[in-house]
């Protein structure tokens, strides 16, 4: 019993630590690559660390209609992402394996999105309200996609446990895994929206809505939100790799190497996100919603196939 607890704590520290340390690094690499694609020099790779440090050092001004909610939303944003990080296997078994299952993971991920809504509500200005209405519409269309992917995995694995589902269980059928392939395609196409990058970042569209929900944030609270957004990129990528591309980095593999291979795969995914973000224009909200609705239909087909064993 004690060993489990120690192992859980060590794993949590490792996961959270890696996410916290590596998230700005990945963001920095992302910005550098985007800049090079645009023929620019780009900021140095350590820039996001410097940005966060600068923001943390600023004066903490509270504004908007409900400052208490503002504080709450900021803390919750980072906290929910880091908790989700503890539930995702990043090269070894998820630290909080026994404490939660995939349903908890789904809810935690949705919680991250809700934090933006809370932030916009706390500000209460016209632009933030329009921003959160967009965010709400996007969430309604988007969150089910990942949920369905996880459920498909759960159906195939016949359980909701983290270590059974998050190891490529979408493919574990006797016959050709149609549902797995469909879900892979669906999630790949909508991945940009989960990590809030072009072409699906309408709710934070700077040129249209002056940053939307995050309008009233400055200083340390903004740092928390930015950190949460960077960490989200990592956590979602890790989740994607764990679910759809698990080979070679599962918990059963040789520990250190598996861990490294896992992060290599995450890096490739981040690179893909960057390139897609740099080469597309932003979609308008109604166009984006229509796109997601189409994907949702495909996902439901995959769900039905899964229940029939495909």
């Amino acid at each position, binding site marked *: 019993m004690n060993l489990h607890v120690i192992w859980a704590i060590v794993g949590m520290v490792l996961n959270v630590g890696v996410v916290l340390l590596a998230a700005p690094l990945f963001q920095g690499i992302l910005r550098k690559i*985007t800049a090079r*694609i*645009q*023929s*620019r020099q780009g900021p140095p790779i350590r820039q996001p660390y410097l940005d966060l440090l600068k923001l943390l050092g600023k*004066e*903490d*001004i*509270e*504004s908007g209609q409900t*400052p208490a909610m503002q504080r709450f939303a900021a803390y919750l944003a980072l906290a929910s992402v880091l908790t989700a990080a503890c539930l995702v296997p990043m090269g070894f078994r998820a630290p909080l394996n026994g404490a939660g299952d995939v349903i908890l993971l789904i809810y935690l991920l949705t919680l991250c999105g809700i934090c933006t809504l809370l932030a916009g509500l706390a500000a209460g*200005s*016209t*632009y933030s309200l*329009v921003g959160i209405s967009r965010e709400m519409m996007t969430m309604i269309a988007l969150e089910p996609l990942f949920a369905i992917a996880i459920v498909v995995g759960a159906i195939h694995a016949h359980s909701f446990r983290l270590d059974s589902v998050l190891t490529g269980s979408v493919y574990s059928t006797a016959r050709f895994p149609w549902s797995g392939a469909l879900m892979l395609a669906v999630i790949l196409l909508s991945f940009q929206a989960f990590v809030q990058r*072009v*072409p699906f*970042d*309408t709710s934070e*569209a*700077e*040129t*249209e809505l*002056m940053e939307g929900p995050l309008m009233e944030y400055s200083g340390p609270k903004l740092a928390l939100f930015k950190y949460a957004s960077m960490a989200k990129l990592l956590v979602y990528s890790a989740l994607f790799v764990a679910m759809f591309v698990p080979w070679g980095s599962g918990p059963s593999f040789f520990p250190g190497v598996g861990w490294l291979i896992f992060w290599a795969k995450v890096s490739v995914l981040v690179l893909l996100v960057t390139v897609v973000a*740099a*080469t*597309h*224009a*932003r*979609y*308008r*909200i*109604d*166009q984006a919603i229509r796109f997601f609705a189409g994907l949702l239909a495909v996902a439901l087909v995959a769900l039905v196939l899964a229940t029939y064993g495909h």
Partner: protein
Amino acid sequence: MVARDRLNQLKEKFGASILRADLPADNRLFVIIEPSAVKAVCLYIFRDLDARYVISIGADDRPYSGKFLVAHDFAFDRDHVLCSILVYVSAASPRIDSITEVVPAASWAEREMRDLVGIEPVGHRYMKRLVLPDGWPENMHPLRKDVPWNQVPEGFDDTRELTFDEPPEGCMVVPFGPFHPTLDEPAHFRLYVEGEMVRGCEYRGFMAHRGIEKLAETVLSYNDIPMLAERICGICGCVHSVAYAQSVEDAAALKPPPRAEYIRTIMLELERLHSHLLWTGLACHIVGFDTLFMQSFRIREPIMWIAEKITGNRKTYGLCVIGGVRWDITPEVKTELSHVLDKLESEWRPVVDAVSKDKNIQKRTSGVGVANLKLVKDEALLGPVARAAGADLDCRRDHPYAAYDRVEFNVITAHGGDVWSRVLVRIQEVFESIRIIRQCLEKMEPGPIQLQINDELPAGRMGLSSVEAPRGESHHFVITGENNHPRRWRVRAPTYQNLQAVPAMIKDQQIADMTISLGSIDPCFSCTDRLETIDVRSGAVKVWSQQELLKLTRAKKV
């Protein structure tokens, strides 16, 4: 038909009301009429003779004729004639019939006339302050001759907020500006939205008003003003300085040497190139496509370098003096310019292909911000906005100036009237500009670049000049004066007319399309606001007054 034929047509219909007519050349017409006939004459010219409305101007002519002067400028594009209908109104009660009913595009010009000169347009349906802020005292009109250029008005109330109209039923108000990441200059659009759709809009602008016309009339001399004129706008500087120089040359009957005209043409087209490339980048940035934004700017950079080589500065060329230009194009510069143009053309073609076939951008811009031909005629829209709707208007061909009568080029039009058509028009115009510059470089003969002007310019003469800026027609009106400076100088930038149509263009569209619609007219607010003698921070964005805002930002809640 030439100007004389148009005058005869007017004489036939309104013989009794015409007091005097001046025909300084075949393409200029100045008609002085009775105040009572102004509405009828303008209706006849605008609708029956199908002229294009240009601008209305108010001037204080009391030291010379004892009266105020109102001028309504029209353009007969097919005949290459610019015409000005002048009316003298009494100094004791300066009022004139408003022509906004018959010419909707005159709405802003008449409000400006009232704010700055104090001539009241009787019958204007929306008589609100346009240029001066709401706290300005009542009877002080800055452009009157008895008001010194540096006077601070007494009784100025800087805490008074702007008064806005009531929004229509069921609409929420979304304020857009004066501080907004997409707008480079401050302007305030008050959008009335229902959900995501815009139902109406109110515009309050003129926050970047600088007192240019007043300065020109009082403290600057003829050759100083081009330096000021080129700073009216951050992109179309050459246009304004050339238009001003041409209007003075028009008034004083001076013709610059041919080489100077070619050089002016080349610099104008270089300016058009860099403006269109900048706009394309900006439009892509607005729809979120930063990569193409960076590329447009990278391709545009060599133009700025060659401009720096020719004139000494990337943008404020300091090009014109009355009667010529200050910089010559040496043979080395000529070869280098040819190389730059070749490289530009070869790099721009792939971008044009990429943009034309890009479904993403097309989806964001088709059917958005539509301006049809009726709007173009009623609101006197100009430039790529009008050409994208199918109107065949281009001052370079219709009112040739500088060396445009000696070069060949096509006028690009499209038919959609939406933002996508404007994108297509602008990216094609780049190739036409390159063609014009190449022809000028070939045809230019060596010679002097400035006129030797030995006598003082005659006073009291009027001059008009229309120049095709990248955004449309830029029209200048000058009355020459004594002591080496003009009596009146009016600058009408193209965005002045195009902005008036924005509420109609964004109606029943989504908020998200607001920025790209606004961006597609390529607004240059600095060109639009030209006058102010005091800086006022009165653009309260929401319902707070300036005092409250200041208090709020300074309060610290720990």
